């Protein structure tokens, strides 16, 4: 699929946080055949110097890096972080997060739209972490975002698709937009559900990173994401309330 000016092959995108080690992260990314990985930037400690080895490892993976503005609670913080990320990672991509509420890490959609407008005008390619609100989505697209990243549930909660109707409505209302479900995905079946709704990709982090075996879990997510997508493309049957015999009734013997 096309994401801005890039051809992306993987419909499972992975976050790079919370893995037991960098080597396990690398193994998970390879197992998933994932080509979009989210990263962040944090204060560097000159003594520990963790930034350089991590950057080297992630570059070796040969994936597209999607830096985020995680932890930013204001437009100014998010825009400044985006500038720093662009210089550090050498990409115009930015996963824009403006957090409005700490308990559920809900996006501040007012700040999000404002920050998206500022960054798009400066040439950033903005991937906003947003809610399923259609009005907000409309404004983000109008600001120049070509991709939306609606949440399925609270970040790191693993609760899955807390409001499938809202996600379905979003997909139906914006058939041409690239929509990537972000946050709340806890199991491979959640990823499949999102893809069966017609979403273009799924981003998972904690569910893979904190699995008993992250590498195996990454493979499971890749398989379920692909299965869900194939199901969507094949055309899913509609559910009905009552049974409908699948074996033909015509020709049935009278044996009673």
């Amino acid at each position: 699929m096309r994401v801005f000016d890039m051809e992306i092959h993987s419909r499972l995108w992975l976050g790079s946080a919370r893995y037991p080690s960098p080597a396990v992260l690398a193994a998970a990314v390879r197992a998933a055949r994932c080509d979009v990985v989210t990263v962040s930037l944090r204060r560097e400690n000159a003594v520990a110097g963790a930034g350089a080895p991590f950057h080297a490892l992630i570059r070796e993976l040969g994936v597209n890096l999607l830096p985020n503005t995680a932890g930013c609670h204001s437009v100014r913080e998010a825009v400044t972080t985006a500038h720093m990320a662009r210089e550090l990672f050498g990409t115009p991509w930015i996963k824009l997060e403006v957090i409005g509420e700490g308990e559920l890490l809900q996006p501040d959609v007012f700040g999000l739209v404002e920050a998206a407008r500022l960054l798009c005008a400066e040439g950033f390619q903005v991937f906003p972490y947003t809610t399923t609100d259609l009005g907000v989505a409309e404004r983000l697209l109008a600001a120049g975002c070509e991709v939306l990243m609606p949440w399925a549930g609270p970040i790191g909660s693993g609760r899955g698709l807390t409001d499938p109707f809202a996600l379905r409505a979003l997909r139906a209302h914006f058939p041409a937009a690239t929509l990537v479900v972000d946050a709340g995905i806890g199991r491979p079946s959640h990823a499949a559900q999102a893809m069966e709704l017609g979403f273009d990709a799924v981003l998972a982090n904690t569910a893979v990173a904190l699995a008993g075996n992250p590498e195996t879990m990454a493979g499971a997510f890749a398989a379920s994401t692909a299965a869900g997508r194939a199901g969507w493309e094949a055309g899913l049957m509609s559910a009905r309330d009552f049974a409908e015999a699948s074996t033909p009734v015509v020709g049935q013997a009278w044996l009673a």
Partner: protein
Amino acid sequence: MELFLNGEPRQTRAADLAALLTELGYAEQGVATAVNGRFVPRPERAAVCLAPRDRVEILAPMQGG
């Protein structure tokens, strides 16, 4: 002078941001910088003079979701 480096008080003799990075031993390419909440692009670091109590942020690539 004393300034705040990544939130911690720090003594320095560096007059500008580029000199501070050199003093601290940071690779020029490996970090992104901000002073008092404003992003300072790499080419402009030498032109940003430091003053006492400036808030300097030095960020590096990290894991993120």
